[in-house]
């Protein structure tokens, strides 16, 4: 029971990270119908950005954990936003309206480019982050096993929850959110009604990149080790989360992320660590076979 509870907490923390990345996939898919394959690498860049800001802060002699988090958040979100904007501008916008595979191939190119860019600029060796938060609560104690909820996990969950609320408000209440929903339904009609479609799509990428950067920051803190290749696997798993939740559906992305996180941590705890990624893919295939529109997605009807 205690072990189970511990895995539940670990899985939810992991799931929060996946959920934030998955939001970027699902938003972009919803609005322009492409799989932004480079999104995982934007997450990786975000992780590096916050790592750099941690190192700079400690070099300046500022060691407050709260300050570090706030600065790293602003730093990585700000710069990652420019990455998101640039990628869309260079690699995807010229291909809008082109045939279906073209943006995907272009995205794979961006992904390869970003990985090698970071590898060349920051070196191929894994980088480790010193833990910012120590200790935690002991929730429950049973036959020699403590169920721990570390302060870090609390921070990750709170941060995710706050971002989710802010994000939901953004989509539902602001004019940008309205424009996004309009573009999602019918881009041509939205343009006719005076929505600046290019700008809306750009902002979608910017928001997605910012969320990915937050996920990168959490990854830094939670795992403590990053390298230039983390984006590939995290990206695929987040995409799986988005599909599981129903691609195009925002609550679905978070739900899918949490489920993937839980599946991974339970699988590694009770079955085998080696095959935890295989488990995720098997789940993806099963979902696609039995419920292709995901848990919360609407079935797509193709009209002639």
């Amino acid at each position: 029971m205690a072990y189970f509870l511990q895995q539940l907490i670990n899985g939810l923390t992991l799931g929060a990270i996946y959920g934030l990345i998955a939001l970027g996939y699902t938003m972009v898919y919803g609005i322009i119908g492409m799989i932004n394959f480079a999104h995982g690498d934007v997450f990786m860049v975000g992780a590096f950005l916050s790592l750099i800001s941690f190192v700079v802060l400690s070099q300046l002699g500022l060691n407050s954990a709260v300050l570090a988090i706030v600065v790293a958040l602003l730093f990585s979100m700000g710069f990652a936003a420019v990455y998101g904007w640039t990628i869309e501008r260079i690699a995807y916008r010229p291909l809008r309206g082109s045939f279906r595979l073209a943006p995907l191939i272009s995205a794979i190119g961006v992904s390869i480019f970003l990985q090698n860019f970071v590898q060349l600029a920051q070196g191929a060796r894994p980088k480790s982050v010193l833990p910012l938060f120590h200790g935690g609560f002991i929730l429950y104690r049973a036959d020699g096993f403590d169920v721990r909820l570390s302060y870090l996990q609390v921070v990750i969950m709170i941060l995710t929850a706050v971002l989710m609320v802010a994000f939901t408000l953004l989509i539902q209440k602001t004019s940008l959110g309205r424009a996004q929903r309009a573009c999602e339904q019918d881009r041509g009609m939205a343009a006719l009604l005076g929505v600046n479609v290019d700008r809306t799509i750009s902002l979608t990428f910017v928001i997605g990149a910012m969320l990915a950067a937050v996920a990168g920051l959490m990854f830094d803190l939670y795992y403590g080790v990053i390298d230039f290749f983390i984006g590939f696997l995290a990206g695929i798993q987040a995409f799986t989360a988005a599909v599981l939740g129903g691609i195009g559906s925002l609550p679905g992305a978070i739900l899918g992320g949490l489920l993937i996180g839980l599946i991974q941590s339970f699988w590694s705890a009770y079955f085998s660590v080696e095959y935890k990624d295989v488990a995720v893919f098997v789940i993806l295939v099963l979902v696609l076979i039995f419920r292709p529109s995901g848990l919360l997605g609407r079935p797509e009807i193709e009209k002639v």
Partner: protein
Amino acid sequence: MRALRDGGLAGLVTLVLTLPIVGLRTVAAPEGLHVVPQIRSVVTIVLLAAAARFGIGLWASRPRASRPPGKGNAAIGRWVGGLGLLAAIVLPFVGSGYVTDLGINILIYVMLGWGLNIVVGLAGLLDLGYVAFYGVGAYTFGLLSSDFGWSFWEALPLCGLFAAGFGVTLGFPVLRLRGDYLAIVTLGFGEIIREVLLNWGVVTNGPNGINGIPKPSFFGLPFSRYAPDGGTTFADFFHLTFNPSQRQIYLYFVILAMALMTNFFTLRIRRLPIGRAWEALREDEIACRALGINATNVKLSAFGIGAMFGGFAGAFFAARMGFISPESFNFGESALILAIVVLGGLGSQLGIVLAAIGLVSFSEIARSLADLGGGLGGLIPANFGDYRMLLFGAAMVAIMVTRPRGLLSQRHPSVLLGSVAP
């Protein structure tokens, strides 16, 4: 003026992009990471980006003469194809061992490209895990030879069959899905195969891979210096002096023949009802369903046949290298093969050859440029080879953006109503 402004803007954006990632390099030290500023690199990159954007702006605003639409592409294609084939046959006899080796490498990718082209180019199904079938073929032969002592030619059909079996098994549940989902499922499948190869140590020997896979023989005549018990070698049989390059040239012709077989098969099957159904399905699935084509079966056949050629190529790869490990079958390979197909122009056989030559020899060229760099007084940095994957990614984006249909795009139907296409 506009070009100047764009150049300045590009420089500014590049400055923001590179300032943290390039400018603040984190270096490991005993007491933890610390940051080393790299101002020169940032300035260089920013200036390069601004200059490149400025150049593109100037080039885009040049006065343009309208070109007459091209004619006789098919005829030119046939000429180039014939000459290319001739060159390919002559190559190992005139080129050095290094050139032949590079040729074998290129031909493996040509064959993989042609195989994947059946799936992606003809049937229009995006497969991001093609390397899985390549890996299945390679491991089938590796295991058959090491555990049961099968020779290359005995195992080859089985390798193709196994890979095709995997293709059909995978394809059966997922081919009902829309294209993008299919892409990710195939990507996942490729990773599953790799992880299973890596972790199922009892059968696959895990990360250590399989060693000592035999080379193919020439109708039972091995290419070795000394004859095995009760046999003769190739050199003895034809009264030649033994030379290791004979084996290499033989391998070259084996893969050339296998690749050409793939090409011939593709060209023929495009005319058959099944091939026409693939192309029709690529263009409009709903119309196909309305006309009574069983879309799932048609896709499945494309998937299986494409996988089969991947399996053949995998068996050859295992035989040629003599050693295989799961790391040879990672996603990077899938991306490279897909890039060859797409950059070559989906569906164009000749384009794939050109793209394979370009992409495979790209890294070789990068390496030799790096060697040259020392001689040219540091004009080309000595670590130029490190930049090749970076440039590869950038080139993929650039080609897609400028020519979304690939270098040689060919999208006209193979068979026209009323007349048989050439």
